[in-house]
């Protein structure tokens, strides 16, 4: 079982895990050599795509929900300072403590100190992109505190000292046999015993994880979570999940520490009626996910007969204000992390998540990571805006209507201006598409023809079969020469593909 490009998680610096060691094209080429990975990805992304379409198609007002979700997020960003202050007072009024963290390092320090104050040697964690982004597990570990991931896929990844590769299904790159090996090798109970009767049946493997984690849930005094939403007017936090590990972490431990990006706030309670419809259907392709928990303050507040006695909310910037300052790019902060754009992306579904380097993979990662970190000339993240064919599928499925293709084009301009070696990066990145994508060639040729109809770098309508989605929106105009034509010409002239 070989997995390329997976270094040991390192103690994160200022930004945390928002940058990979290699540029996208180099990391992607390694991924493409892994047949197992490609098979798993094709199966998984295809299956979730089908489920999503079925439950989205049955909603008669899906477009109205998307429009509302997008508007709530735009409104939130426009009024962010007042909403954050409102959220802060609402949480404080119900017994919570609010902390502010400028970057990953500061957030890690706050959480580590809070956990340390409780004398905790161990904390349980609910899957959270924000804590993955800041590299919290490694920071806690360095302070002698063991963080146990309790989401099954995160646990698999953690036991294997690996990195998540998908927002929703972090172990999408592992099959059952590999997971059984990981459990047998690394899973140990309190007495140091490995699991028995393991086999490689998903039900048996899940049962092993249930037993392993249950004793931890029942006795660990500190939990760390993320949050999907926080309501400014009520101070209500919301965690959406499937397995019940979230409920365990939010209910049993005495202390709960929630780390949340500042963009996750929504103005009103009523706004959740939009997102609780958009998120599950876009994400797991279910009408509703098995469990959603909401809490406003601590034990005893609002008649709460249990739950944490101490609640800390850490509001995280870590580049979000930098992204916010980009008037085209700021819409990336609308993202509700559903992962629908990953599953429809022709690039992601071939390369998988690790190629993107950052915690945030796929189309959203390709814009969000460079927006959060900025792009220097030698920044690996400057290659990400080129990790796309601009096919537009991501925009069509995005429940909050983030126009990812336009942001990609915008960021390509920035990367080029900052002196990034655009051409080489692009060439390497898309080289793998050359071998097997006849349809892709045809589509790109059509797009090139369509360029004649573009005005001001945008066009309103493409010829079929691409008209299906330009009917609904603008598409950034493709470059004068397609990548493939450029590449073919370059090869004729003796330029290598490498």
């Amino acid at each position, binding site marked *: 079982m070989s997995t390329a490009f997976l270094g040991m998680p390192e103690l994160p610096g200022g930004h945390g895990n928002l940058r990979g060691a290699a540029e996208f094209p180099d990391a992607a080429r390694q991924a493409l050599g892994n047949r197992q990975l490609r098979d798993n990805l094709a199966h998984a992304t295809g299956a979730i795509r089908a489920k999503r379409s079925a439950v989205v198609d049955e909603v008669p007002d899906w477009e*109205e929900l998307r429009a509302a979700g997008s*508007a709530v997020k735009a409104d939130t960003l426009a009024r962010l300072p007042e909403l954050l202050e409102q959220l802060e007072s609402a949480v404080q009024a119900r017994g919570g403590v609010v902390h502010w963290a400028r970057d990953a390092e500061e957030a890690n320090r706050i959480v580590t100190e809070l956990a340390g104050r409780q004398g905790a040697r161990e904390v349980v964690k609910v899957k959270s992109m924000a804590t993955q982004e800041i590299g919290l597990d490694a920071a806690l570990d360095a302070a002698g505190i063991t963080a146990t991931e309790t989401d*099954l896929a995160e646990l698999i990844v953690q036991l294997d000292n690996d990195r998540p590769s998908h927002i929703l299904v972090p172990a999408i790159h592992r099959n059952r046999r590999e997971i059984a090996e990981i459990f047998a090798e690394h899973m140990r109970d309190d007495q140091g015993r490995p699991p028995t009767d393991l086999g490689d049946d*998903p039900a048996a493997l899940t049962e092993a994880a249930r037993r392993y984690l249950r004793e931890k849930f029942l006795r660990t005094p500190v939990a760390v979570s993320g949050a999907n939403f926080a309501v400014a007017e009520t101070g209500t936090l919301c965690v959406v999940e*499937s397995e019940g590990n979230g409920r365990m972490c939010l209910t049993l431990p005495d202390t709960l520490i929630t780390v949340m990006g500042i963009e996750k706030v929504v103005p009103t309670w009523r706004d959740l009626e939009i997102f609780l419809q958009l998120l599950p259907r876009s994400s797991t392709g279910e009408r509703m996910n098995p469990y959603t928990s909401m809490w406003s303050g601590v034990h005893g507040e609002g008649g*709460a007969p249990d739950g944490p006695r101490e609640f800390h909310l850490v509001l995280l910037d870590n580049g979000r204000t930098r992204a916010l*300052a980009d008037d085209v790019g*700021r819409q990336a902060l609308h993202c509700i992390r559903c992962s629908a754009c990953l599953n429809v992306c022709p690039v992601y579904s071939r390369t998988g998540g690790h190629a993107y380097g950052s915690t945030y993979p796929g189309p959203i990662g390709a814009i969000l990571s460079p927006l959060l970190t900025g792009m220097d000339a030698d920044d690996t993240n400057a290659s990400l805006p080129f990790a796309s064919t601009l096919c537009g599928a991501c925009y069509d499925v995005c429940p909050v209507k983030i126009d990812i293709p336009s942001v990609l084009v915008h960021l390509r301009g920035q990367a080029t201006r900052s002196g990034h070696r655009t051409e080489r990066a692009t060439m390497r990145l898309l080289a793998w598409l050359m071998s097997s994508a006849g349809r892709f060639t045809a589509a790109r040729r059509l797009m090139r023809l369509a360029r004649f109809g573009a005005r001001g770098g945008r066009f309103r309508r493409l010829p079929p079969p691409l008209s299906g989605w330009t009917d609904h929106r603008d598409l950034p105009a493709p470059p004068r020469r397609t990548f493939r034509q450029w590449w073919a010409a370059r090869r004729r002239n003796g330029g290598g593909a490498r």
Partner: protein
Amino acid sequence: MSARSEILARVRAALADEPAVRQVPREYRQHSRDAGTADLAEMFGERLAEYTARVHRATPEHTPAEIIAEVLRARGASSAVVARGLPARWRPGTASIGLVDDTGLGIGELDRTDAAVTGCAVAIAETGTLVLDAGADQGRRAISLIPDHHVCVVRTDQIVGTVAEALAALDPLRPLTFISGPSATSDIELDRVEGVHGPRNLDVIVTPVGC
């Protein structure tokens, strides 16, 4: 400068172009088209059953208390914890099922209890969702979480059509748990496995008001 003032200052600086504050268009449906109580109960039952929860219909002839006793027996449960406010008429009279009132049981005791019986606050037909708000007939969150079998009684007048109607009926300041089927994971090769950390078995009894 404190982190708080620095972040707020950065946010204000980032918004120097003063992006327009948009009115949110709420043109999506607030209410379900099939607003009849019978239709909603039907849809709720079907959709919840799709998550592999078992759904039962109570009648004056086949009461919630009887069904509770049957489903507990069918699952081999010998003990079930209930909130003290669970209505007397929902409590099975059978001596073979020991109902334990939650008087602050320890987590370990809950872990050794086979089942939990609760009411709910609201149910959503379109998504097949139960919502618990720690009301008197439900009790604290741990009850419906730790035992491996959750039996939930839903009155037909608690069933609403849409998510929007449910939120309008709920108090955001209460601790809320939305439950749509038993706990599940698809983390291994996308094979759905039911029962991870939450209860592996979910029985839902839909009852007319007054039963």
